[in-house]
């Protein structure tokens, strides 16, 4: 692997990793809200969360640009008060990847939370177990398979994100040029085919690796839950 290739792969991992790290707890909270609570406007909220999955990525990227751009209603104050900006930065790429992956995180977590027998929480209350310990001993461990499945799926999606990223933070080598964007750039140049093919190989290996890790973890958890 050349130095540039290593740098592209590492950047992609950093962007996707950061995206999932931040999005996963949020997705868990949203999934828990959807799985265990009814509130006015729930259907609308559910549709909103699913939106990045169904609208063209370019539209999502443009939306991010409007909201989080340096003049945007969120991006503006961020820059003014904290001196923080997403524009043309790897953090912006992570934001785009996280938003695009979000629906894929929420769904499996929600399914596994819905599968938890609500009577277990009732049982725990009669044993004097408070809210936090109920969460740590029931909701979290029994929701873990969904958390892992969602995390891996979302990570793979974040790794391959293209449309929203290039629209929001452009294609800056070393900063926002992840694997997908680099492959795209190489394919645009006349002699780029071979180099592109190598990067395509790396991305396939990364994605396969993620899926295999997820399988191993799930099997381990399954064996743990089954006991012996």
């Amino acid at each position: 692997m050349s130095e540039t290739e290593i740098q592209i792969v590492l950047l992609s991992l950093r962007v996707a990793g950061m995206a999932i790290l931040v999005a996963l707890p949020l997705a868990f909270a949203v999934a828990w809200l959807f799985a265990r609570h009814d509130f006015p406007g729930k259907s609308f909220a559910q549709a909103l969360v699913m939106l990045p999955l169904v609208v063209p990525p370019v539209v999502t990227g443009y939306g991010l640009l409007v909201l989080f751009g340096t003049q945007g209603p969120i991006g503006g104050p961020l820059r003014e008060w904290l001196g923080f900006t997403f524009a043309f930065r790897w953090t912006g790429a992570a934001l785009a990847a996280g938003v695009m992956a979000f629906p894929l995180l929420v769904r499996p977590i929600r399914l596994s939370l819905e599968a938890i027998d609500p009577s277990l929480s009732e049982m725990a209350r009669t044993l004097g177990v408070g809210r936090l310990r109920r969460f740590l001993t029931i909701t979290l461990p029994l929701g873990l398979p969904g958390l892992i499945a969602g995390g891996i799926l979302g990570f793979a999606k974040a790794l391959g994100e293209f449309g929203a990223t290039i629209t929001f933070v452009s294609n800056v080598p070393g900063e926002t040029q992840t694997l997908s964007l680099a492959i795209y750039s190489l394919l645009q140049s006349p002699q780029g085919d071979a180099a592109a093919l190598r990067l395509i190989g790396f991305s396939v290996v990364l994605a396969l690796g993620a899926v295999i890790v997820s399988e191993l973890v799930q099997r381990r958890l399954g064996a743990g839950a089954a006991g012996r």
Partner: protein
Amino acid sequence: MSEMLHVDIVVRQGAFETECRFDAEAGVTALFGPSGAGKTTALRAIAGLVPGASGTIRLGERILLDSARGIGVPAEKRRVGFVFQEGRLLPHLTVASNLTYGRHGGRGPTDEALRHMAGFLGIGHLLDRKPRTLSGGERQRVAIGRALLSDPALLLMDEPLASLDPARRAELLPMIERVRDETDIPIVFVSHNVGEVARLAETLVVMDGGRTLAAGPALDIFPRFETDAALGQGEAGALVEGKVTAIDSQFGIATVDLGGEALELTQGGFSVGQIVRLRILAGDVSLAVGDAGAMEGLSIRNRLVTTIAAIAPDRTGPYAELLLGLGQVRLRARVTRKSLFEMGLHEGQRVTAMIKAVSVERRR
């Protein structure tokens, strides 16, 4: 130190109301009634698991619910252990971790307490297993142990034996009796099984259609007419206790003192001085008036002189139900309404109760 439990609540769930009122001490209180009577709703309200409960619940000095004063202690702070019908073990934890899961005392139970409880319930060999590998009876033992190890001030059991086959049930019943005998906390037990209630209950609360029909000492409440609907067709009768005074080994007969009268039992294995609890079905008691009760040439030997305390007001079916008094002891009899009419039976009359069968519910 045992604490009194006082319950006086109304639970509103949609259009349905459940009223439950009783006082209980240490020992087993049975909430008894047909399904749909509101027993489980009342039990869950005592645990603090149902919204919409109003009234008062007191455990010793502690107020768990006083809706008039806006007090409603949340379930996790009530120190009330609950054994659910289906066990409800945590599937991802071992038996040992399930047993030590409770936290009423702030910290979990000690290893010492865990070992003692596992030995007591006969589940010491299962500690490393996961719940899914356990049988129904084993799961229920773990659930009972878990509730007890959480150090509750009150134990609630919602038909803990209902999901078990008769053999497992027969194994677990003595275990619940041992829990009753070795702890000094009140135990409230929901059941629609006459045998369980007759054997376990010190206090009996009869419920039907969301209302409490009668509540008090089991021996007083069991023979009441209000209890009949809960007992079901053919099970109406009396629950009595008496001391074994003599054993006739030649004929295999034990004599029990019942309100000053002698009752002969043919079941073996008694010893003099034992207190036995007996169930006598109304249908197994015939009545004789005047000299007929002392007549010779009758094979029935158990003839107790009693007084008619009450005759059930319902005068429609072919049978009449009677409550008989013998000192503090209450018996039940069923005669045809035609006999009632022809014999001229009335309240306050002395009659001889001729008892054809007695079942032994417990001995101690």
